[in-house]
């Protein structure tokens, strides 16, 4: 069982966990009164979410080795979703 753990999936998990903690630290409230609109925090958080989602799709869901139509569809969806999220976030100003 342990032989499977030294594996690409585990390194991906390690990376995902680290950037999860990073996004949490970036967005966390030191002292509790810093809940203001912050474009940079949002940008970092959304970028990390994008990276994480794409890593899961490419590695865990094995889209990286899937036919190209599936790769294109997933990437198109990701770009559309995060594009729309970004647009809605910035356009409201």
């Amino acid at each position, binding site marked *: 069982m342990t032989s*499977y753990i030294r594996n690409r999936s585990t390194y991906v998990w390690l990376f995902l966990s680290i950037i999860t903690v990073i996004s949490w630290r970036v967005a966390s409230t030191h002292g509790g009164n810093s809940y203001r*609109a912050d474009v940079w925090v949002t940008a970092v958080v959304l970028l990390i979410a994008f990276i*994480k989602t794409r890593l899961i799709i490419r590695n865990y*869901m094995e889209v990286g*080795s899937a036919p190209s139509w599936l790769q294109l569809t997933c990437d198109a969806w990701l770009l559309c979703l995060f594009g729309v999220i970004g647009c*809605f976030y910035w356009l409201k100003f």
Partner: protein
Amino acid sequence: MAAPVHDTGLSVANDAEGNSKRHLPGDANVWLFVIGDMVIFSCYFTAYLFDRGHSHELFLQSQQHLSQNVGVINTLILLTSSLFVALSIQAARAGDLGSASRFLTLGFACGVGFVLIKSYEWFLELSSGWTISSNAFFMHYYMMTSLHFFHVLLGLVILTMLRRELRRMASPRLQFLQIGATYWHMVDFLWIIIFALAYLMR
């Protein structure tokens, strides 16, 4: 949209031998479902962002009442669960059904942990008076998280079925395992997006 799905749906049954380099994980049917579900969730996310744009301050104020610490713990738990399920598929592919089943059990346990923590988090929020009709933010928050919660519960049922397949069947169908794993990873990354949108973004 349906045409490629229909043709490729049954032709990838022999990926256990690994003779095709570019294989479709699971089958085309589950991918139609996953992509459709992704699009449906995108609608919820877009609606959330749209309302957020109209009452930004309210959303920022309300976000303070969520616990980021609980959120990050749940994210890590689901990530770990995804890892175990991915490892389980790799073990099953290598023919090591015992390890595959054990990894699946660990993944299942993490899923149960998510359910418990999420329920506890809801309990805390509800008992401090934040309900689904408190304001627009909590409406979106409860709707998104409860729909995701339903997906997690469905995923736990599916993981149970996968484990049964590994334990009971003489030659488990790898394709069936992959279908379940694909669904579970989707549940994982949908939570990651919810975590970013509801807990973290400003």
